[in-house]
């Protein structure tokens, strides 16, 4: 299972994680000081009680005034502890959350920078989990584990110090009870780690099963496979149950055993303490203080089990996060030496770029070439329609021109320059490859047109007019500020299309590649598209990957692609007269499209 690679190099991951703590050095330092103060305050309480019992309460004569003073000191200590603990927790949480934020943004930025072929090969769900859940566990690790571990270590060392200070012999006896507890803890670590991995595996198996079968419910019902599906589910579910139970048993054994060790050392202390007291070398106050201290000594060990779980998931999450962060699969910024100065003005004012494909070869997967030596050119301001069978490589042309993929060989020139010499940003500002399968973000129509760029009100309404979106906007209550739900489902397909057109017009690329939707489109949408499309293509060099008659008839020239090669090109009437592939395709495809 892919969610179960916790066997990576843990110290390595820990080192990488701790690296993120660097900007928070100050927080960590102050938090550490608060920690010391809080732990000291906590430790001093039993010492103070011991002191008061011995010298004020059991003293001869008893000292009530001294008792009062001690109570005041105790109260101060308690307040000090309260303040310092809060401060410590708050600061470390702030650091943990800060790291979480940094890591999330870094992950998103990094992942968005990867090539489409990389992103297309990974399920969206798994990317989302990396950025959300996995980062969350890392943050939890910083806010609740790092300092607690230090604190627990500190408290145990401190308690031990106090024990020795109070009485060396009893302290030695306490230490003698430690080895079994340590062995139990070490055993627990191993067992809990195994159990954790099994549970993770079970959880991710059942989640994958559920999400798949919920999506595929129709297939299950069509084949009447409910019974077997249920049997498979029960099998997964039982596996998860048994690994959950065995994890629970590990914890159910560990904590009682540690508590038992604590009580056993208490019993030993009482026995030996009584002996020492009888011999006159141990005060009663020290004995009472010991009873409290033993509990404090074992408490951190008990807590360890919870922290261990958090640490496990943080390490597993960290491993997955770093795996994503360290994968590089980008379209390189400049794969050729770049002549100076081209990034600013690729094309002169008022001009449009010409495009040239020269003997372009390309394969998405090795051994399955999609383009096998395609050459053509589009003149300044010309509209070229590309037609061909499904799988002929039409959409690939759009993918290559905008450098979503790099051609394997051959050359693509825009305005006379090899596109690999251009900065990616300049290229993509010039050439926009738009898919007609509209994707809208949830948010307002305005946000969807601007995509974060600043357009003036005039520019926006001009774009809406040109795309014929304005009549739609007038009907909506909030106009441009109409709120779209996820996927824009509260508008019709045609309306969504017009928003996408307005988006392109506002961003005003010098050259446009439009990949028309293959799916059948209803008549209302068709009508709306007709009106917008002409305006969209006006005044731009354009390549249209055409699936509809209307688009083809608007084109200046038509290119017929057949299994990765250019078969024919020319105007509609020329090609029909030639009676070749185009005319057969024309009849077949557009007849079929009804």
């Amino acid at each position, binding site marked *: 299972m892919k969610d179960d690679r916790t066997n990576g190099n843990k110290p390595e991951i820990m080192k990488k994680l701790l690296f993120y703590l660097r900007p928070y050095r100050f927080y960590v330092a102050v938090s550490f000081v608060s920690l010391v103060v809080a732990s000291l305050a*906590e430790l001093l309480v039993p010492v103070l009680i011991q002191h*008061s*019992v011995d010298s*004020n309460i*059991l003293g001869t004569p008893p000292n009530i005034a001294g*008792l009062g003073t001690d109570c005041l000191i*105790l109260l101060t200590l308690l307040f000090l*502890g309260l303040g310092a603990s*809060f401060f410590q*927790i*708050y600061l470390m949480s702030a650091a943990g*959350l800060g790291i979480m934020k940094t890591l999330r*943004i870094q992950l998103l930025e990094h992942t*968005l920078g990867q090539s*489409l072929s990389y*992103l297309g090969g990974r*399920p969206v769900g798994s*990317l*989302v989990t990396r950025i*959300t859940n996995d980062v969350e566990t890392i943050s939890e690790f910083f806010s609740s584990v790092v300092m607690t571990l230090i604190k627990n270590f500190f408290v145990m060392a401190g308690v031990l110090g106090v024990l020795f200070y109070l009485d060396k012999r009893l302290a030695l006896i306490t230490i003698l009870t430690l080895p079994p507890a340590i062995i139990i803890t070490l055993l627990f670590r191993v067992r809990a780690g195994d159990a954790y991995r099994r549970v993770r595996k079970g959880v991710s198996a059942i*989640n994958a099963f*559920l999400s*798949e079968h919920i999506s595929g*419910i129709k*297939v299950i*019902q*069509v*084949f009447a*496979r409910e019974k077997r599906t249920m049997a498979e*589910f029960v099998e997964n*579910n*039982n596996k998860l*149950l048994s690994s959950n*139970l065995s994890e*629970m048993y590990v914890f*159910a054994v560990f904590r009682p055993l540690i*508590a*038992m060790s604590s*009580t*056993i050392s*208490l*019993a030993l202390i*009482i*026995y030996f303490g009584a002996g020492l007291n*009888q011999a006159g070398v141990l005060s*009663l106050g020290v004995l*009472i203080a010991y*009873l*409290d201290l033993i509990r404090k000594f074992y408490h951190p060990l008990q807590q360890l089990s919870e922290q261990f779980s958090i640490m496990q998931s943080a390490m597993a999450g960290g491993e997955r996060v770093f795996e994503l962060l360290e994968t590089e699969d980008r379209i390189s910024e400049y794969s050729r030496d770049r002549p100076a100065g081209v990034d600013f003005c690729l094309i002169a004012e008022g001009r449009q770029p010409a495009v040239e494909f020269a003997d372009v070869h390309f394969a998405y997967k090795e051994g399955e070439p999609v383009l096998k030596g395609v050459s053509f050119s589009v003149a300044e301001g010309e509209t070229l329609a590309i037609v061909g069978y499904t799988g002929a490589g039409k959409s690939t042309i759009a993918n290559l021109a*905008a450098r979503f993929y790099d051609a394997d060989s051959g050359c693509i020139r825009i305005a006379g320059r090899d596109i690999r010499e251009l900065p990616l940003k300049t290229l993509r500002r010039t050439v*926009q490859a738009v*898919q007609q399968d509209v*994707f809208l973000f949830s948010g307002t129509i305005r946000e969807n047109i601007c995509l*974060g760029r600043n357009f003036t009100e005039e520019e926006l309404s001009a774009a809406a007019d040109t795309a014929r979106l304005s009549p739609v906007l007038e009907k909506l209550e909030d106009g441009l500020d109409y709120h779209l739900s*996820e996927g824009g489902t509260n508008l019709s397909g045609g309306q969504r299309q017009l928003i996408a057109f307005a*988006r392109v017009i506002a961003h005003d690329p010098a050259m446009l590649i439009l990949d028309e939707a293959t799916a059948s489109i*209803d008549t209302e949408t068709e009508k709306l598209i007709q009106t917008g499309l002409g305006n969209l293509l006006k005044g731009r060099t354009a390549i249209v990957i055409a699936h509809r008659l209307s688009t083809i008839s608007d084109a200046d020239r038509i290119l017929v692609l057949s299994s990765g090669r250019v078969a024919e090109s020319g105007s509609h009437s020329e090609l029909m007269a030639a009676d070749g592939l185009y005319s057969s395709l024309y*009849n077949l495809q557009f*007849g*079929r499209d009804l």
Partner: protein
Amino acid sequence: MYFPGLICLVVTDAGQLYIPQLTKTAIDMVASGGFLLEAVLRIAVIMIILSVLIAAGRFGWRFFIGGSARKIESGLREELFSHLLRLPPDFYEKRKTGDMMARFTNDMNAIRMACGMAVVSLVDGIFMAAFIFIILFSQYPLIAGWIVLPFPVLAFLVLGFGRILGRRSKLVQEGFSALSAMVQEIFSGVRVLKTFTREGWAVEKFADANNEYLSRTMSLVRIWGLFFPLINFLSGLTALLLLWFGGREVIAGTLSPGDFAAVLSYLSLLVWPMMGAGFTINWLERGAASLSRIGEFLDAEPSIKSGLSEQPVSGAIEVRGLSSRWPGAAEEVLSDISFTIPEGKSVGILGRTGSGKSSLVNLIPRLYDPPPGTIFIGGRDVREYGLEPLRRSVGLVLQDSFLFSQTIKQNIGYADGDLSDEMIADAAEFSTIDRDLKNFPFGWDTMVGERGHTLSGGQKQRVAISRAYLTDPEILIFDDCLSAVDSETESEILRQFLEKRKGRTSIIISNRTGTLSHTDFILVLEDGRLSASGPHEQLIEAKGFYRDIYKLQQAEDERR
């Protein structure tokens, strides 16, 4: 299973309560001066035995109660899934997958906590608190009133905190969901972002949501961070009160030093039950909310109920005056459709997108329910047949070819599991997927990935066709399931289909008149109505939609 668990819990608690009594006796012995070391030894030994007993008790309640909670969770998950399997597709269409998944994850966790930890801390809290109060007030009435003062404050705080924590953590949870939804959307729309080079905008938007989430979490931390230190503070305060009031009693001689130590122990035992009380309420509330969310699913009626007839499903398909609309929709998808398909005939259906072709064929195996008395097979209403025999007899290849993330072989054999290599080869040849075999690195054992994403659209569709072919049903329906296959392959598959299915009932939805011409007769649907029907030859003679399409496609056929 709860009962033995509760007994273990009570034994544990009783043992824990007894230990301070033992320490008290021991300390008093020591304080009195003249004592026998053997007597102390006896106490120490009793303590050790008791500690073993407590450890066993602790293991016991975790084993029984924790185990029961896990089993309840697991059983509920099973019940929920088994119920979901029986719900019709329109139940699923109304809901997001992520939302349904949450029922199985978050809600199940909440219920488990309510059945497990909440029960433990409730019983533990009541038992411990009651007994400690009884011991304190009966044995040390003089000081008990003073030292327990902080506890009502503590209980009150925990309750109040619990509410605020609940509210704020709900906000945090919502912030987290918003964040996830946003990342999901950004990755789904990554192509748009790259096209317009607006990746930076997406990151900015995300950073805003991230900041919002951060500030919500910080407001939770401000409360949460105070919680444990405050608990420590209050328990320290009780020690302080004991030192002052108890100390004076010791000095006055009305309280023994052993009692002093015992009270100190009791006080520390009281802290956790008090905190537990607060958590219990939180756990129970959340568990109840989750249970009602799951209940909402369990209460959904499986509206398509199996009929009682045991008869084999075969014979002519007869549709009488069928009208149908989607729930809540004003317009009818199908209106007043009647036709008969004699047994063993092949039928084509032609119509524009949205003309109701899919709706019609989905009604036959009752994926959606037809009104009573509208669709008959072998003279019997489809609603009277058992659902499983009906669906096994009516094979439907859906438009959306969903594959499971298994091997190609397992997908092809989905309906029956065990099959021989010849059967696979036959089914693969039928859909022509065998031509792509060389592209699959592990042959038929190649995994197809989540929903089959490693295959092309055409490959997926052809695997889905092989899958349905193998069930060899009485009635086989192709619901326009070749849209991603090029037209030559499509006509080849359909030709083969008609040949192999000769003598059995078949229905093909297609827009190619060339293919449809091989069927016995054709139904033409326009806007949910049956506008024409008859054999190909007859339809091309009559003026109408079918002939228009035929004419358009004829030119191409001649060219072949």
